[in-house]
């Protein structure tokens, strides 16, 4: 089976966000593989071990992203591809990223492509469906179980807490939701092997793309932090009185019940 994973490098979820001159300050921040993409990588490895074939992890980014690609290889992926957009001068958006991924993937042979449900930084979840559309294949988002039976993917997906059980023919794009699996940590031998696994870098030229082809459709005109919350009130006294005071406050002061 030819298995592809589309991956994004993101801020660690434990990071505080600092905005400097309208931009997110990346100084000293820890970066990780987007946690939802880790589910995708794990599932891809499990699929390969069961059905044979190869797992290729693809990302759009710059040189820095090689670190996360190596981590994916150390987890057990076979190949990594960096689609390098360092040359892009303007802001990129989901249109940019998905156009570049589509340009790369349309020339590959694939049975299934896996991605995360969303990236925890931007939280939009646009890229995978856009790429699926670009490739003309079906998409199944927020999956929590996956089995491949011949040419059919048998899938369970999370629909706002309920479970939809579906079948769809390959090739297909799926996006991974929590509960799908428990991503493995790279083992020491895995890390050693990863150093020798292929990591290719391609730029726009290699993909026959011009900068205009991938020009962002949206523009960010500002970023800001949520207003600081005023200090709350920790209630005091007998528990019964506290409970009464709370219900009273929610009803008459905050007016939320």
């Amino acid at each position, binding site marked *: 089976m030819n298995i592809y994973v589309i991956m994004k490098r993101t*801020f660690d*979820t*434990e990071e*505080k*966000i600092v*905005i400097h001159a309208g931009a997110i300050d990346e100084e000293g921040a820890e970066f990780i593989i987007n946690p939802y993409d880790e589910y995708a990588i794990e599932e891809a490895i499990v699929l390969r071990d069961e059905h044979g074939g190869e797992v290729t992890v693809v990302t759009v980014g710059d040189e820095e992203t090689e670190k996360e690609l190596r981590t994916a290889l150390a987890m057990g992926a076979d190949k990594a591809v960096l689609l390098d957009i360092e040359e892009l001068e303007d802001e990129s*958006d989901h*249109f940019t990223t*998905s156009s570049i991924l589509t340009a790369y993937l349309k020339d590959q042979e694939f049975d299934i492509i896996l991605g995360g449900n969303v990236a*925890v*930084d931007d*939280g*939009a*979840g*646009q890229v*995978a*469906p*856009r*790429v*699926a*559309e*670009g490739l003309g294949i*079906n*998409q199944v*988002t927020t999956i929590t179980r996956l089995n491949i039976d011949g040419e059919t993917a048998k899938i369970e997906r*999370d*629909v*706002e*807490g*309920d*479970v*939809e059980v*579906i*079948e*769809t023919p390959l090739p297909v794009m799926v996006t991974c*939701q*929590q509960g799908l699996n428990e991503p493995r940590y790279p083992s020491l031998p895995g890390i050693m092997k990863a150093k020798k696994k292929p990591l290719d870098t391609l730029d726009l030229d290699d993909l026959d793309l011009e900068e205009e082809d991938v020009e*962002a*459709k*949206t*523009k*960010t*005109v500002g*970023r*800001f*932090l*949520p207003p600081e*919350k005023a200090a*709350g*009130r*920790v209630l005091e006294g007998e*528990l019964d009185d*506290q*409970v009464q005071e*709370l*219900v009273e406050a*929610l*009803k008459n002061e905050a007016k*939320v*019940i």
Partner: protein
Amino acid sequence: MGQKVLVLGEMKNGEVRNVTYEAIAAGQKIVDGGEIVGVLFGENLQEHAETMIHYGADRVVTAEKKELAPYTTDAYSQALLQICEAEKPEGIVMGHTSSGKDLAPRMAGKLKAGLVSDAVGVDIEDGQVVFTRPIYSGKAFEKKVIEEGLVLATIRPNNIVAFEKDESRSGDVSSMDIEIKDIRTMIKDVVKKTSDGVDLSEANIIVSGGRGVKSADGFKPLEELAEVLGAAVGASRGACDAEYCDYSLQIGQTGKVVTPDLYIACGISGAIQHLAGMSNSKVIVAINKDPEAPIFEVADYGIVGDLFEVVPKLTEEFSKVSV
């Protein structure tokens, strides 16, 4: 901007979802006096189409087809594309719900258009439509514009205020003949796991449990409180990882991001990744044994105590007042 915006309505349990009315209000901002055309897919839509008009749509186009009763990417994207081609709108708005998240980027891909996902605000600044949306799960916000072409947006439930229902409003409801072919997704079954139908992302009140609930049984008092309040039950990653509850309940940066009117955190310490998912709730109540727990820093009201003592008392007190 433009003269016409489509608002794709969404049905759940036989009713139009609230987020549809919020999307109409958002669409009205974008279209600025132009026409809001509601779109509704499924079966037996006449009455629901009229309700969309009561909430501010000028007219509604329906596609009544059994292939459009359950959501599938293929059927909905084909249908919406055909309506787009007929109506030629300047914008499309829908809810940032399970189906909206699946459909909107697919449509944006088809139409090679910009899409702002998960907007919590729409404003006009210097004649331009500016969307506000959370990033890093609400640790920060960004303002987005689409400078050219079609404007696509999904809006987060519970954030944009819908218009008051006005039953005197009337408008045209027309049915369009849509051709659907090759639906590649076959839905075999839908397993209901949400007990009372209160969905986390749309809930006005959420009662949420963390490691402090100690076991799956420990969620019982929280569920009782939720029932009295008509609330949804949520959980922290700690509670999910410890297998006290299903991952579908998880609130946080990995998990659902929620903004209810009232969030009651029980036995949740308040790790930064959980705070990211709930700290924009309007009112936060924290119940925790540890007075130093970070959850108290974002709480409007705090009770330091054992949740197993506090929560049942709260349930009792709430059931006394009419909620």
